[in-house]
């Protein structure tokens, strides 16, 4: 699968980003690119700065220094919703769904990011509004189906099981029609069998033309699905390369993977 990675151009460019919280430097001069159409893995020990990286990319935090360019546009000072409309979507490490909305509505909120109609159209029920509404619904249902959640479309998000909630997060992020979709530990709390299913799903997401940035601690999943991997430790990038390269990188093994116990199936 590495063939896709070589041809395409840079979608997102993280350039020398540093972010400090008081005395803690969560990211320290980190630079890497995400190329269009690839699945990039972002790994590293706990507290290495992976989630912070997402937060900087989606406008939750402003970097102390450095910049991020997405499809040629600098993201500095941009409003969070504008970044989403530009084409970056994400999921959350600790699930954050709209709890008392149904699964379908959660996805619809994402889909709305690109509809053009607003207040007056809604009040007057213009044809344009009806059409867009119908389209959004169709798209949302289609995404739910894609995630295997169609049957649960009317369930309130809060009543879904943990796994389904994670899947719904992905559907909602996809609904914003992003170019880049960032997944923060989507497999947390899944059992190995479920992880296999998720792995296929992520590939399918990419096959639909999305670029994927994936944070994950499960090495089988990461190794199995990504085209390239960036490794962070203490807020610094310590390695970058194909899964095979990373697997054997001694620094990564020391910092992150550890020596695998023989019986870890």
């Amino acid at each position, binding site marked *: 699968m590495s063939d896709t990675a070589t041809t395409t151009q840079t979608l997102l460019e993280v350039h020398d980003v540093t972010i400090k919280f008081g005395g803690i430097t969560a990211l320290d001069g980190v630079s890497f690119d995400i190329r269009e159409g690839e699945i990039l893995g972002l790994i590293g020990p706990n507290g290495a700065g992976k989630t912070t990286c997402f937060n900087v990319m989606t406008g939750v935090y402003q970097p102390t220094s450095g910049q991020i360019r997405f499809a040629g546009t600098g993201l500095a000072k941009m409003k969070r*919703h504008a970044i989403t409309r530009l084409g970056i979507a994400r999921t959350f490490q600790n699930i954050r769904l709209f709890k008392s909305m149904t699964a*379908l509505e959660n996805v619809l*909120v994402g889909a709305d990011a690109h509809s053009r109609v607003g207040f007056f159209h809604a009040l007057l029920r213009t044809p344009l509004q009806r059409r867009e509404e119908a389209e959004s619904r169709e798209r949302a249902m*289609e995404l739910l189906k894609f995630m295997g959640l169609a049957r649960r479309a009317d369930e309130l998000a809060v009543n879904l099981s943990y796994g389904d909630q994670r899947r719904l997060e992905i559907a909602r992020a996809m609904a914003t029609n992003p170019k880049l979709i960032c997944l923060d530990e989507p497999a947390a709390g899944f059992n190995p069998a479920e992880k296999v299913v998720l792995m296929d799903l992520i590939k399918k997401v990419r096959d639909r033309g999305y670029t994927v940035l994936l944070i994950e601690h499960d090495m089988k999943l990461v190794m199995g699905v990504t085209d390239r991997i960036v490794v962070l430790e203490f807020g610094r990038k310590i390695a970058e390369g194909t899964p095979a390269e990373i697997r054997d990188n001694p620094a990564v093994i020391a910092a992150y993977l550890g020596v695998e116990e023989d019986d870890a199936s």
Partner: protein
Amino acid sequence: MNLVPAPVAATFSRIGARFDNRPAKITLAVLGVLFVYALPLLNIPLLTTPDSDFGGVLFSVAAYALIAVGLNIVIGYAGLLDLGYVGFYATGAYTVGVLTQYHWHWPFFLALPVAIVVTMIAGVMLGAPTLRVRGDYLAIVTMGFGEIIRLVITNTEWLGKSGGIAKIPMPPTIGTPPQPGEPGGLFGIPHISWSTFPNVVDVGHETHFLSFTVLDAIPFYWLIVTALLLVLLGDKLLKDSRVGRAWEATREDEDVAEIMGVPTFRYKLLAFALGAGIGGLSGAMFATRQTFIQPASFALLLSMLFVASVIVGGAGNRWGAVAGGAVVAYLPERFRGFTEWRMLVFGIALIVLATWRPEGLFPPRRTRRAKAAEAEIEELEGDAANV
């Protein structure tokens, strides 16, 4: 619980929803609406307040319902706790007072839209700087705003200070203008009397169609119910659209909504402005019905009652808001039999209501929308099977 008019309409439309065929639905809705309009004439035993003019009570019931529907957009949909809503109510009332009487002499129906617009502007002016403040901080900021409005009126010569504005004109009567002792209007509609059995049409007691006088609140009631129905329609159209979803998402988790592409600030401001506009509308109605307004009419406590209306009814559900407004306006009138105990009883009633229905009288319902979605699933899955 006594039936109150607006929830009756709600019940009707809900029954209507059970029927799948449109004609039945429409018939029921029309009947419901007719019933709401006819309510003050029917003098239904138990429902009609024995100790206070029912037409007048119904006017306040409808006014509270209207206010609650407006405030529900702010609290129920967008999740912004506004404890100063009375400020908008006052703004609407005073705009009408100033335009139709105190400084100018515009006709009421010209002043009305201006009042709504002015109040919306007030809403935006309050909202733009303060909506960045979150949660309960917003509540207290808005409360302060409500008090500021009242105090500024109290201290401003141009607005009549504490003396208020008197002799605000009523809406023009359609038909013969009323004279002392002559109600005017187009024709008289007799009330129903239940004091005898079988109940009879009481020709001695008539409401004159669209004659606006101090002695008969019923035409005012019709006016405000009409406004209420229009607002409810608009509310429904908005709620069932992208706008409604954006509000809901913002209420659930503002940060995430923002990250999902919802410009939350703009939507909060919209909710605020719309809520304010509706508050202004009801204030304007109040001013023309009352013909006399004073800053004392816009006390802080009223804001609390407005919030109570929304929540007792079920925040997030427009029919809940209508019901809540009706209950909060109606109960104290209904409790007049308790004489000086009535506010104590009302207080206890609020506690009981809260404990009995913590989600409100009509909690927001998602089931119906869920039903609609179900149909779509069937279709989609059907398609899938064919592929």
